[in-house]
């Protein structure tokens, strides 16, 4: 229960003024620009876009600056801004098979058309602090090599001649949209994928890790991981044809998972799918593992009671803005709620014959 209480305006104003000053920090240190955040903290920008569910690097960089680097606060700002935008329509599904790949690797097939392209990865770095970065330094231009193969087909496209891997047949059912309709159970795969792609990276990672440790039979290989740019094409009603309205960077992960078959499906490798805005392979792999775990029912697998198999549990707790909103609201005034609880406890104690009831501070 809440009652309106006047007061605190000046304290709030002064708190916000101090927040602004603390955000700026020591004024003898140069101020961060949005362009610097966008260029040099790109992976933070990518995470804010993915979980904020809005692709706009400038806005994400602004949100990171405003939130002093608190990424969940930044995501909150982006989600709030998103609700103010009129929606012009939905795009054609992006064609990830024609991605301009910065990175493309497969953990299952060594020699594959298009090759293993490492891209700008942290993998194989020694994870030792690089003190050169603490000083100003020019970065030499990255080496280049002649591009011999332009087509980079999906691994599952060309390695499935034997039918050993589950197909993902084309389907044009319009997907449900959890930003328009409340998320309700049962959630089909399209809704689950939408929820997972904007879900908290840490939560999704934890759940995915749990499936690897045995909470849901889900032995996953990374069939393919790719990061790069895809064109975004949208049908323009007033023109009567589709045009590309832009280009976005995405990370895609396809897992292939052991599957010994079920009553409805033959033994084959099944698939989990992860696709997120920006460069975030940890999130994309996590999403693919959780997607696969949640598919137990449609594949006719047993529910072994693992958290990652519980759609309701996963989807209702994966959104960090919902979670932080509910979690943090308990720090806001609950004076009246607590007063009534206090009265109740005093009454119970009297009835239980407890002697002295100490006066509680209010």
């Amino acid at each position, binding site marked *: 229960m809440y009652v309106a209480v006047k007061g605190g305006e000046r304290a709030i104003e002064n708190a916000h003024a101090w927040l602004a000053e603390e955000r700026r920090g020591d004024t003898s240190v140069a101020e961060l620009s949005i362009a610097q955040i966008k260029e040099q903290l790109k992976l933070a920008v990518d995470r804010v876009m993915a979980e904020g569910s809005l*692709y706009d690097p400038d806005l994400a960089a602004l949100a990171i600056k405003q939130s002093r680097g608190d990424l969940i606060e930044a995501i909150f700002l982006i989600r709030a801004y998103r609700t103010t935008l009129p929606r012009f329509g939905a795009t054609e599904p992006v064609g990830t098979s024609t991605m301009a790949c910065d990175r493309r690797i497969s953990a299952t097939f060594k020699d594959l058309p298009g090759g293993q392209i490492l891209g700008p990865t942290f993998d194989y770095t020694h994870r030792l602090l690089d003190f050169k970065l603490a000083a100003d330094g020019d970065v030499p231009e990255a080496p280049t090599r002649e591009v011999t193969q332009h087509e980079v087909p999906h691994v599952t496209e060309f390695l499935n001649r034997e039918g050993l891997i589950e197909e993902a*047949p084309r389907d044009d059912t319009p997907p449900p949209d959890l930003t328009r309709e409340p998320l309700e159970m049962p959630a089909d795969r399209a809704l689950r994928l939408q929820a997972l792609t904007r879900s908290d990276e840490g939560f999704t990672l934890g759940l995915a890790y749990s499936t690897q440790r045995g909470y849901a039979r889900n032995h996953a290989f990374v069939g393919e991981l790719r990061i790069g740019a895809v064109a975004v094409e949208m049908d323009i009603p007033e023109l009567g044809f589709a045009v590309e309205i832009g280009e976005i960077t995405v990370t895609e992960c396809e897992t292939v998972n052991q599957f010994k078959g079920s009553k409805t499906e033959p033994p084959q490798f099944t698939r989990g799918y992860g696709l997120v805005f920006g460069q975030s392979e940890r999130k994309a792999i996590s999403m693919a593992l959780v997607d696969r775990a949640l598919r137990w029912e449609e594949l006719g697998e047993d529910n072994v009671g693992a958290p990652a198999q519980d759609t309701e549990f996963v989807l209702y707790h994966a959104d960090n803005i919902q979670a932080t909103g509910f979690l943090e609201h308990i720090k806001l005034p609950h004076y009246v709620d607590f007063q009534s609880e206090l009265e109740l406890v005093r009454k119970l104690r009297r009835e239980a014959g407890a002697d002295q009831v100490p006066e509680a501070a209010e």
Partner: protein
Amino acid sequence: MKDTSDENAPRKAWMSLLAKAPEGRIAALLHAAMDPPKFTWLRPPEIGSAMVRARAGGTGAPFNLGEVTVTRCALTLETGEIGHAYIQGRSKADAEAAALVDALMQGQSSETVRAAVLAPLEGEASAARATRAAKAAATKVDFFTMTRGED
């Protein structure tokens, strides 16, 4: 991808190119070539979003991936051509420049505009793509087989 009749293919191509131009670039190229023509707004620049879709498994049923900011506008030149723009981001100036070029491409000065705006944009875009692809190619793994000790 939707089928596009041949008649619309060139316009689709230039609108797609304009939508991906770096900020301020279209206006800079256009203004260097000519005084921008007079026009009236059919729809002044408006910022909104588009819901980006993708397919499960890359090929299966569509799902909603998230939104992207988009700016759109439409204008009419004094000579009657109508230009449209739908471009990623929130730059009203870029949307205006893209719609102007779209309109001009349908009129008398289309060859001038193609040479002054579209050709350089295309050149810059493909150079940027090629540079990135060449850097990616340099990180491609060349496997070689080690001689095994017992052989």
